[in-house]
């Protein structure tokens, strides 16, 4: 059974300049698979992620998640179902209560979703911290006093707490330094292999998507303009946006004689 099936989503932001954030968008995602959602700023990729996360209501279209009508869920039923579809955002600091501790932030997810008992919560928090490469010693520390990379690990631990089938990663590594980014990407891939979690990986950076995504969907002006296996799309993009994204990836350049002459 397909894990996530998005059909014909549309979302228009009204106003003087009517913005079609989503124009008839359809995507699917299988269990344990990563779909990279790539596009320039304003292409609608974050709006699509937000509709799937139920943070934005679409004008029309359907979303089926684990066989059920995801958009029909309301109130308590939606809150319960959210355990299976978690999210990690770009700015790890903005995603936490600034006064929370590491253990408190993860413990809240367990408490809200009635996972385990109050007594075994510290053990569960410790186990989650270890799964994302932190130690139980991190639990009492304030969210504000750990590094950005550690904070993103805590955000991943919080997402894992409820045993999700899908995690939406919205530019989740874009604000990290490259060495930290490499370790977080490794962690995500390892977790996927061990747990069979699916990822919707939203990014403007095709090089990052290429490293982790099985398939890729390229967006432009609210539409999916190209989709397919990541390697195939990158090798021969058929859309103008796909070609522009491929061309824009910075490459390590050296050994050009012209440059050496001026150095």
């Amino acid at each position, binding site marked *: 059974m397909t894990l996530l099936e998005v059909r014909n989503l549309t979302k228009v932001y009204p106003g003087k300049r009517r913005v079609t954030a989503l124009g008839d968008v359809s995507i699917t995602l299988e*269990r*344990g698979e990563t779909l990279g959602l790539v596009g320039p700023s304003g292409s609608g990729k974050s709006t699509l992620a937000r509709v799937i996360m139920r943070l934005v209501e679409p004008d029309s279209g359907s979303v089926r998640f684990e066989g059920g009508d995801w958009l029909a869920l309301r109130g308590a039923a939606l809150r319960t179902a959210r355990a299976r579809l978690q999210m990690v955002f770009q700015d790890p600091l903005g995603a936490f209560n600034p006064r929370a501790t590491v253990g408190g932030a993860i413990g809240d997810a367990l408490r809200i979703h009635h996972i385990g008992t109050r007594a075994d919560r510290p053990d569960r928090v410790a186990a989650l911290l270890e799964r994302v490469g932190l130690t139980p010693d991190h639990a009492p520390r304030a969210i504000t006093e750990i590094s950005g990379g550690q904070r993103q690990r805590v955000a991943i631990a919080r997402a894992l707490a409820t045993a999700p089938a899908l995690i939406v990663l919205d530019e989740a590594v874009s604000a990290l*330094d490259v*060495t930290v980014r490499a370790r977080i990407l490794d962690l995500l891939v390892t977790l996927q292999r061990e747990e069979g979690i699916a990822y919707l990986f939203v990014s403007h950076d095709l090089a990052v998507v290429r*490293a982790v995504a099985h398939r890729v969907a390229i967006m432009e002006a609210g539409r999916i303009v190209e989709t397919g296996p990541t390697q195939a799309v990158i090798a021969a993009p058929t859309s103008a946006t796909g070609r522009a994204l491929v061309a824009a990836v910075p490459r*390590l*350049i*050296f050994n050009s004689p012209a440059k050496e002459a001026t150095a």
Partner: protein
Amino acid sequence: MNALVSISGLTVTYPRAATPALRDVTLDFLQGEKLAVIGESGSGKSTLARALVDLLPPGSRRDGKIDWPEGPPAPGRDYGYVFQDPGASFDPVLSIGTQMIEVLQTHLSLGRHDARDRAAQLLVRMQIPSPALALDAFPHQFSGGQKQRIAIAIAIATGPKLLIADEPTSALDTVVQAEIVALLKDLVEADNMALLFITHDIALASGLADRIAVFRDARLVEIGSANQIIGAPREAYTRGLVATHLDLTTPVLIGVAP
């Protein structure tokens, strides 16, 4: 080539900071050179640029020597500065034209009409569509990439000999980033400006710069030609940066689809 500025033993400590943001940095920055400064957050790369042109916050402590053989550059005239967030570089309630004309009239003795013509020419050079209309528009009416183009126009408006660009593309998507970097390269080469390009992206640095200076934990790790730093880095830290770079030829982290 002659040094535009010689830095020796530069140490900078911000007010109330326990440790220096920059420690004992010595390097020459040459006239007309494109120098990329790379490093992670907190490595001291922005502090170097700010110390160079006296933009450190009040109460900062600066030790060591910064020697400008031709005299220190005057702010707004002899150097231009482009910041990461193009939105924060503008006054949101003044038109683009008003803000550009103010800079031009402050530093060049131009009448209002001439200043407006000059501003329009600059926007043409930045490939902003309909420059005459753009002058009467407000910052929020432009995209992030267009705002950064206009910020660059203001930075080079007075024909400075030095352009400092501090992570100018980090808030932009990769397609716009490539356009802005190409524009910067064309501008500094055409006008023979020196460029200090601060970035965390070693590949971006390699495509733009003549030389690359690598910073880590407030120290200069190594400096060399872009070729040497990328092709034959001397320090383990630099080798690590090259190894963690991702592009369309680096190994992928996943197997075949499940």
